[in-house]
């Protein structure tokens, strides 16, 4: 460490240069402190007494409240901060486990008067869901809203959040309300939704760029969203639960989404669900911008056809991630019969993956899974790296058989194949 302190008269001088920094610079400093430290600067000196009250962001995270204090103390700490604060609040986040209900009511009321722009609230899962009060709809400056485990009911008189860009609702809203809400937020760019089940999921968000939806849907339609570049769908409901539902041409209907899409993720049993109808050879349009495709497969049959369909329509694909989705240990082995006949003459892997550079395969469990990999390898001339993870229940013997088989495969490129051991699913 360079010692520049001894520059003469000011080495140990008692000049206080920090207290006179302009307010916006001071705010930049204080905002980077955990809220507790920021508030404690109030007792440093007379000049510092009210420096913290102008901070634009108030973030109460799990680590920042003192351990061992009761929940009411936490709540009163938040009260103290909110009431002493002066000026507009740009961001408020309370993700720590404060008892919900009345406390949040109060805070939302205060925040609605303070021009809040970014709001994140997480209610304790052990409590009942929190009814978000209507004063939240008065927050006209809101541009980022995140609610976890609440209940948001949109009143019919709601005029809209005209500045809302990011919306993240986890288990917090019903399907009608969400449609209505989105239709009133014309600038919405990012939407993330976790829900149990939506019968119809129609969103009309012209400015939407990013969509992430976790939850079972029967009928999905994304109205014209020309800017949509990133879409991710996920649910884990097994086929037994998809009761009587139209076997229409689901696949086409769904994928007829934005043509500018760059990243598409179909996780869980989504792809399986979409394959219930018939699967075309090729999609009706080419997705020239699709660069990254992430899919989870369960059965090595129809879903492969679906993937092929997408691959044929996405000539510029650079990254491919395949997950062998397993909902049970036995489930995988049961599929042997079905899958065995799949890669027959009818299934031609005939598309050239001319831009594919990276491939990641998660949860390989049987030799059958490798067939698809073999096809990829022989059709990807510029492939750079392929990472393979086996499923964590596969035994060592099977693993070595898989690896031996992998070694045999011809490669159209000089790709590197990395075997990275068992894949551990991180819990969400």
């Amino acid at each position, binding site marked *: *460490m*360079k010692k*520049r*302190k001894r*520059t003469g008269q*000011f*080495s140990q*001088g*008692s*000049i*206080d*240069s*920090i*207290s*006179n*920094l*302009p307010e*916006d*610079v001071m705010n*930049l*400093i*204080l905002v*980077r*402190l*955990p809220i507790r*430290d920021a*508030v*404690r*600067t*109030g*007792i*440093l*000196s*007379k*000049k*510092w*007494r009210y420096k913290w009250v102008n901070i634009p962001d108030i973030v109460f995270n799990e680590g920042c409240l003192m351990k061992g204090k009761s929940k009411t103390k936490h709540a*009163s*700490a938040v*009260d*103290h901060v909110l*009431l*002493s604060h002066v000026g507009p609040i740009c961001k408020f986040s309370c993700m720590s486990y404060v008892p919900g209900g*009345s406390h949040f*009511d*109060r805070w939302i*009321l*205060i925040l609605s*008067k303070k021009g809040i722009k970014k709001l994140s609230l997480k209610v304790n899962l052990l409590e009942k869901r929190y009814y978000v*009060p209507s*004063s939240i709809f008065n927050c006209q400056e809101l541009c980022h809203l995140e609610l976890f485990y609440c209940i948001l009911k949109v009143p019919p*008189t709601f005029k809209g959040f005209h500045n809302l860009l990011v919306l993240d609702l986890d288990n917090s809203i019903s399907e009608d309300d969400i449609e209505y809400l989105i239709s009133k937020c014309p600038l919405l760019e990012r939407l993330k939704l976790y829900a149990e089940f939506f019968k119809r999921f129609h969103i009309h968000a012209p400015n939407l760029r990013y969509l992430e939806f976790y939850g079972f849907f029967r009928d999905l339609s994304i109205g014209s969203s020309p800017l949509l570049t990133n879409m991710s769908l996920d649910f884990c409901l097994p086929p037994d639960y998809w009761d009587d539902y139209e076997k229409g041409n689901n696949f086409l209907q769904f994928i007829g989404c934005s043509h500018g899409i760059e990243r598409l993720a179909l996780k869980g049993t989504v792809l399986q669900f979409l394959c219930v109808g018939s699967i075309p050879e090729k999609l009706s349009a080419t997705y020239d911008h699709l660069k990254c495709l992430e899919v989870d497969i369960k059965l090595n049959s129809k879903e492969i056809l679906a993937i092929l369909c997408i691959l044929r329509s996405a000539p510029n694909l650079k990254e491919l991630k395949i997950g062998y989705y397993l909902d049970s240990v036995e489930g995988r082995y049961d599929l042997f019969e079905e899958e065995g006949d799949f890669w027959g003459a009818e299934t031609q892997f005939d598309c050239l993956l001319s831009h594919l550079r990276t491939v990641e395969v998660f949860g390989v469990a049987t030799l059958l899974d490798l067939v698809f990999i073999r096809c990829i390898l022989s059709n990807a001339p510029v492939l750079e790296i392929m990472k393979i993870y086996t499923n964590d229940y596969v035994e060592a013997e099977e693993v070595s058989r898989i690896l031996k088989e992998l070694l045999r495969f011809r490669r159209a490129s000089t790709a590197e194949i990395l075997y990275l051991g068992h894949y551990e699913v991180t819990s969400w």
Partner: protein
Amino acid sequence: MSENNMEIIKPEVMKSFIWLQTSDGSIQQVEEEVAMFCPMICREILQSGTGSSKNYAISLPQQVNPAVLSLILDYCRFHQVPGRSNKERKSFDEKFIRIDTKRLCELTSAADSLQLKPLVDLTSRALARMIEGKTPEEIRETFHLPDDLTEEEKLEPLKNTTDDPRIRLLNRLYARKRKELKEKKKLKNVEVEEERVDDRSVDDLLSFINGDEGPKGVRAKQKKKNRRRKEQSKDPLSTVNQNNKELGSLEAGGTVVPSPSRTSKLPDTSDDAFTTKGDFEEVDVDDGIDPARKEELDREVEDFARRLNSDWPERMHFASLGQERKLVPTSNGNGSLHRYSRLERRLDFPTACNIVGRCPIVTPTRFQLQKVLSVFCFDVQREIIDVLEVLHLFI
């Protein structure tokens, strides 16, 4: 240089310089691309054309003295080169901010005045790191801050948290309202009883709203009670305080007419408007609202009360105690509560402010405020709390 005779001149020689003048008057020249990295200098060059010669040097803000300028220019010189990797930049930054706190503060201040945002971010992060996790004494030592707060002042923030009457009041109100909403569904008879209890508070309320508070209020309360009793013989009551103390109407006089169950005691709204206005004038010295406006307010409130009444004729049986029913508004449960609160909103904000503002609530005691608010339904309470907060509590 004519175009024909143009020599091939090496790029380095062609470098142009910008002239900068610092706060102490000294002028120095700096390579153009380095100087242009600062938005403020960039703007000066482009807009006013200064900086091209010694006589027309760009004068920098006064926070920029020569020492700090040289630091800033070092920073600019490094970062304006496009080819550097992120790692390189990061490690340069780390080393760059290892200076004493005084110079770091000066640097922050100067960078801010030159609008050099990346440097401001870097330095403020560094300063934040110096503050984070330290005890106050340590921070004071690091930055040479005087320890000039009294002990009380230091403890003050802690006191506020537990004692803030607004918080306790709000908590109590919400809790109470939730409880009442539950009870309301089950026991309707009991509610009639509750209203009796409420009456006393209504009196308090009336007297309070008529401008008394604190010890004075007690005396005035007595006076009011007597006066109220005299007015019993008047007409049937008008609005409010339904079973669950959920409805209320605000009058011009700022009084709330209590529940129908206490009909014998309760005067009519319209009558009350005039009588209590009288009362009000007696007690309230500083009523800033002129009579014309008062009339208007009276009318508005009556209108409002009428609107309330017209919506819920069916709940009139609750008002039973031998009084006329027609002016009794009710709440039909959640649905109409909702409707109610929307109507309430028609009482526009200035009016509401006026009405509430007539009660000079400087620091209401919890008791008083509770009494006032308990008359109204939950949603209305919230509205009123809004208003109160705007007026007094969130200045």
